[in-house]
């Protein structure tokens, strides 16, 4: 269709609307940005954290690479190459203090990994001490840090470093540059010395010429020269002679397997290795498996040991208690909402203030007030004892258990049930009940057949609101629930604040989010979101 001047009508309309749309967009832009930053971004971050696992491959790159040949189902630990790679990774990790975090990470999957990595982290810098000592025995120059810098460093860098040292400055040392010769003739030695140099200079801010290289550098040098004595000839002058001396000397072979076994005999069992191999991938379903009491094993996904199975139970408890709270809120709130909707305005306003009163009191104050009421020496027990209903030695336990959580949360969430109910009931004209009665229905069937069905949207809105709020509740179960009345959210808070297992917290949070979304979907299927009236 065309407009009078021959432009397609649709395009003309779009042009006319574009300005309006732009203006509308500008109006909501601040909120949109706010929501993106404060709501969607954290949720995205949470989803990412729940699968992110780069710490293993970042901390132990060589170990992970060399473990790929090892059979997961093997009954024996991997061979010396893998031990060497782990030593290499661990020396760097302990210098960077990342091995403790890796230990914590792996400990989420298998108890014992944390202490294993921490204790070995303390020992690993001494691995091969005797070998580097024997090198120094062979020629004392190897005990001089400068020897290594001269051998492996680029001559130009060395000169630059010397002139820097001459200024007496403490910072701003030129970063280590390997020489081309060293890189081709002794690639592995150069690489590990390079790592040592980088950490010494950049991380620790020390002078490279005053720090003894790791034993691992010496061990690697010995191995490379022994394996290829000709490499010595690539170097000039005294370096060639020194290297040739190493090639000819009778030096012991490094045995990392023994060193690790000596540090902790768990290393010569396949367990820690399979944990590293299973969780080597940069992204892992491990946290989600953990969140539902499962774990990866060499044989596949399997339930966790019985004493670690806790999350399914907590999810079920959260759902069950939330359902109970929702049902109680409905039971208590429905008559109140009905009264509110049907009382004359003045009384209704007074009642409404009473309903809203809890909203004007801080959550913590209300929860604490419940504590005072419900505890053993609390008001309710005192009254019951005073009127002789219970004995002083048989006071009711209404707090630090599930009952406490249910009572306090029902009270706190009640307004969230009453308000949607009220707003729906307010729109049901009293003539429906009159009509039903005039048609011959008694009070009950008029209510049940006519009034109740029309209040269902309010019930649905109230229930879903209360339920969703309840399953995410944290403070009240924490204060009222004791050990057995806590919710999954308390566990999430524990993992965020105390155990620092943020990946698991994120996975649990994601599951909670999914549960809410699924509930919402089910609700939409059966009740219809359009029927929800919140006010």
């Amino acid at each position: 269709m065309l407009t009078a001047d021959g432009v397609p009508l649709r395009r003309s309309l779009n042009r006319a609307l574009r300005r309006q749309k732009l203006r509308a967009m500008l109006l909501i832009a601040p909120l949109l940005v706010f929501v993106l930053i404060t709501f969607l971004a954290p949720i995205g971050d949470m989803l990412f954290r729940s699968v992110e696992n780069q710490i293993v491959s970042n901390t132990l790159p060589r170990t992970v690479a060399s473990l790929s040949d090892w059979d997961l189902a093997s009954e024996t630990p991997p061979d010396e190459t893998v031990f060497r790679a782990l030593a290499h990774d661990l020396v760097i990790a302990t210098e960077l203090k990342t091995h403790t975090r890796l230990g914590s990470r792996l400990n989420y999957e298998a108890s014992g990994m944390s202490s294993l990595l921490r204790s070995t982290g303390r020992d690993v810098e001494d691995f091969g001490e005797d070998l580097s000592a024997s090198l120094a025995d062979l020629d004392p120059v190897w005990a001089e840090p400068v020897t290594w810098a001269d051998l492996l460093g680029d001559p130009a860098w060395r000169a630059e470093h010397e002139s820097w040292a001459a200024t007496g400055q403490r910072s701003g040392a030129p970063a280590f540059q390997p020489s081309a010769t060293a890189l081709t003739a002794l690639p592995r030695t150069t690489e590990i010395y390079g790592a040592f140099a980088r950490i010494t200079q950049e991380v620790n801010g020390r002078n490279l010429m005053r720090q003894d290289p790791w034993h691992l550098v010496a061990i690697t040098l010995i191995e490379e020269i022994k394996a290829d004595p000709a490499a010595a000839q690539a170097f000039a002058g005294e370096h060639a002679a020194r290297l040739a001396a190493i090639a000819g000397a009778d030096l012991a072979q490094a045995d990392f397997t023994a060193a690790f076994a000596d540090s902790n005999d768990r290393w010569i069992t396949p367990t820690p290795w399979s944990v590293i191999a299973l969780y080597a991938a940069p992204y892992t379903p491990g946290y989600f498996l953990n969140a539902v009491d499962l774990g990866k094993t060499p044989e596949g996904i399997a339930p966790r040991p019985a004493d670690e199975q806790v999350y399914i139970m907590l999810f079920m408890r959260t759902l069950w208690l939330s359902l109970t709270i929702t049902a109680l809120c409905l039971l208590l709130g429905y008559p109140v909402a009905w009264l509110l909707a049907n009382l004359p305005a003045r009384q209704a306003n007074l009642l409404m203030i009473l309903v809203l009163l809890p909203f004007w009191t801080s959550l913590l104050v209300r929860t604490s007030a419940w504590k005072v009421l419900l505890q053993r020496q609390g008001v309710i027990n005192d009254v019951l004892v005073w009127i002789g209903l219970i004995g002083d030695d048989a006071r009711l336990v209404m707090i630090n258990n599930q009952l406490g959580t249910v009572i306090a949360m029902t009270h706190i969430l009640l307004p969230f049930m009453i308000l949607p109910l009220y707003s729906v009931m307010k729109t049901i004209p009293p003539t429906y009940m009159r009509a039903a009665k005039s048609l011959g229905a008694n009070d009950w069937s008029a209510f049940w057949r006519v009034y109740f069905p029309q209040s269902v949207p309010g019930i649905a809105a109230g229930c879903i609101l209360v339920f969703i709020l309840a399953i995410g509740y944290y403070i009240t179960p924490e204060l009222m629930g004791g050990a057995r009345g806590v919710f999954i959210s308390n566990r999430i808070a524990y993992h965020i604040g105390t155990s620092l297992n943020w990946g698991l917290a994120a996975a649990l949070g994601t599951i909670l989010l999914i549960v809410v979304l699924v509930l919402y979907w089910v609700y939409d299927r059966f009740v219809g979101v359009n029927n929800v009236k919140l006010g």
Partner: protein
Amino acid sequence: MAEEGLMTKTDGDEFVVFDGVQKSYDGTTLVVKDLNLSVPKGEFLTMLGPSGSGKTTCLMMLAGFETATSGEIRLQGRNINTVPPHKRGIGMVFQNYALFPHMSVAENLAFPLEVRKIGKSEREQKVRRALEMVQMGDFGGRRPAQLSGGQQQRIALARALVFEPELVLMDEPLGALDKQLREQMQFEITRIAHDLGITVVYVTHDQTEALTMSDRVAVFNDGRIQQLATPSDLYEHPANSFVAQFIGENNRLMGTVTRIQGDACIVRLDSGDEIDAKPVNVIRVGDRTQISIRPERVETNKDRLRDGAHTLQAEVLEFIYMGDIFRTRLRVAGHDDFIIKTRNAPDQIRHQPGSMIDIGWLPDDCRALDAPQGT
């Protein structure tokens, strides 16, 4: 036959009785003051009045949603003051239809049958018949929200009738409809009520509705029945100035009675002119009175008046052409809201604004009523 007729009459005259009924909500003022009314079986009685006149309260007391503060309401001779609404067996049509939105039309209609534990097949049959009665046979499966206002009205009517009550109450049932539909429904409701022989108590504030539909009309004002009469009596012979003013269009002139002779009297208007009138509720010479003349009974042609009839000078202020009639506004005896209506006929004069004419009327058409308080 005669005996049966007599019996029916006695029984029927006492079908619904309000006996000294009073109603107060707050304990200080009466909304309904001493209501006495009896409705015979089969009658279509309308309670007409402005809002706040007590008519709806009366209906609600009859339905059982309000209780009388004192007095007695009897249905077929039985005191129903303490009978709950659902046991009264009275059908009711509400102002906003009150169709249950969560039920289909058929379910709405089946509802009163279900609560009466009527079997399924009979129920379906009655629902079908009721739907056909209101010509909505095909709409059983729809929801009320899918129907137009007029259709909802028919369904509400059908639902009030489906359980075959002998008495049906209607509370301004046509208030929400547009004019054309309203007229059509007025006709239909009376037809159905007549066909079924049911007794209807109908509440409205629309006098046209009251006049066209009812056997008798009770005009309510200030908690009292001002006049209970057939529509024509009500129009032709309003018993007091309120009724005269409330029913139909009416010209008012204020004056004082100067002479009464049988069913005629002379009234001196406040302007000094004297006119003939029929005394209705003036008793003696000197009474203040409000003269009431229907606009269509004012005569401008002197030839049609009897000899010696008083006439008044009037100035034409406005002439309005309304199609079927002409409406002319005059200044008469100092009042400039005096209206006359004349039929649009070829020989009819169209009065020019500014011209002076003489007007008069038959004494019977000019009723000397009570003077409203404060005049």
